[in-house]
């Protein structure tokens, strides 16, 4: 059904565009809406991942340093610089280690570091732990691979669920818009062709579809701009930064959308005057 709707819309849109080039603006607007939905979908997924950050923060690596260790600050700095490490904090009162029953219990130590990693993926955690172990004066490295795996699995599941829900929403919106959209485009083309056959000039017969195309294009651009703006308000990742970059130039985007809308009539006049001869009895006409 989704394919049928998409093909129906595409075929009708192409037929309209073939005769009335301004309709490109409407079609561009349509794709702008879909692109905006896809972008905002990515932002939602990224937002979900970010909101899971709290869960990740409860997990980390405890590093117990020998009591006679000197240069704790230097060690802290060196560990912080490791790839995959988000930060390392000096902990006066180390967290109780009973939450890791399967790990080695360390002796009580006055010097401890709590290291948070960028990724909670068990393999990368293992790599970071190995790198920390290689530092001199590091006595014990404590973390729970099982807990890391559980957190990683939970986060992956939530991300997949969010992505699936968003995809479903996009499909539903596509179908909901495609079905009446197909009828609308066909109706526009039919009415334009009937008017042409009854003696209207190319310009007169193209006017309703042209205006609809221009308004549709401008509206599509405006919606796309709004969607990007809304999407830019969520999340805090690189994608979010990119979205924020786009929305920071919202005025420019809006101007672009309006420009497309106003450019349309010019394209229409050129296309209508030199376009293909419309046939109101074209057997292939939808």
């Amino acid at each position, binding site marked *: 059904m989704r394919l049928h709707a998409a093909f129906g819309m595409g075929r009708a849109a192409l037929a309209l565009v073939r005769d009335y080039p301004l309709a490109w603006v409407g079609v561009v607007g349509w794709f702008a809406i879909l692109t905006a939905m896809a972008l905002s979908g990515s932002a939602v997924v990224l937002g979900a991942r970010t909101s899971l950050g709290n869960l990740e923060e409860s997990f980390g690596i405890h590093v117990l340093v020998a009591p006679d260790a000197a240069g704790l600050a230097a060690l802290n700095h060196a560990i912080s610089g490791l790839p995959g490490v988000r930060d390392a904090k000096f902990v006066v009162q180390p967290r109780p280690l009973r939450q890791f029953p399967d790990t080695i219990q360390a002796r009580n130590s006055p010097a401890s570091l709590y290291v948070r990693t960028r990724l909670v993926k068990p393999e990368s955690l293992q790599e970071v732990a190995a790198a920390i172990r290689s530092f001199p004066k590091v006595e014990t490295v404590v973390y729970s691979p099982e807990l890391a795996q559980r957190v990683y699995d939970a986060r992956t599941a939530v991300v997949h669920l969010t992505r699936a829900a968003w995809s479903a929403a996009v499909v539903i919106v596509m179908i909901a818009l495609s079905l009446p959209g197909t009828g609308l485009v066909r109706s526009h083309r039919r*009415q334009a062709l009937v008017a042409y056959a009854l003696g209207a000039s190319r310009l007169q017969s193209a006017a309703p579809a042209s205006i609809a195309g221009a308004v549709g294009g401008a509206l599509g651009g405006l919606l796309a701009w709004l969607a990007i703006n809304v999407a830019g308000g969520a999340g805090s990742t690189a994608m979010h930064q990119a979205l924020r970059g786009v929305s920071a130039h919202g005025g420019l985007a809006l101007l672009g959308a309006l420009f497309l809308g106003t450019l349309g009539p010019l394209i229409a006049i050129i296309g209508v005057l030199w376009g293909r001869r419309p046939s109101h*009895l074209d057997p292939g006409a939808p």
Partner: protein
Amino acid sequence: MIRLVRVSYGSPRRVLQNVSLHLPRGSAGVLVGPMGSGKTLILRLCSGSLLPDDGSVLVGGSDTRTMRGRAQQRMRQATAFITTELPLQPTRTVLQNITTPLELRGTQRTRAVRAALRALDALDALSLAKAWPAELSSGERQVVVIARALAQRPLLVLVDEPMAALPSCHGERLMTLLSDLSAQGSSVLMASRDAELAPRDARIWQLRGGTVGPCEVIPHRVDAPRSALVDVLLRHVGPT
């Protein structure tokens, strides 16, 4: 008025093959043939909406292939096409549908409305004037399509299977109107599966296998008396 010179159309299947016919101004003609014989195709070629692959179609002395811009628009305005394939505009009332072609050519609104009402009256369909196309039956829609064509003061009337959706009681009335239009100087070309109903003194062409047989004239197929109402209509609707 209409001259087809060795017209061929269709690829790879030749629907029309070397078709030639001539319909002078002020005369009526009927293309008779089975389904798929190319009757409607000839009407489309005459309307200029299709161009022949070979040969030429001359309407009023001008080749449809070389017509451009304003000349093409004038030809469309002088042609009335009565067909179910040219539907009514759903967002306009019956009256507005009939006045549309008149307004497109710049006729004053009040004159266009008067012409539309006269055309509806001639078809006993005055009560439909304010109705919307969606409220009409298929027969009533066909009546409105005919009224729209008549109100245009056409020089050329192309009629495609008029009885396909028309109530039988309107058949003879339509033939009388078409006969009178041709008597007033319009050329009428009709496509039909049989020649049972035809305008007066119509030339009949049989189509078979993509070719046209010799022309024969069947006089006075319709003997319905011309009504006073039709006279009024023709005085205003006839070609100028």
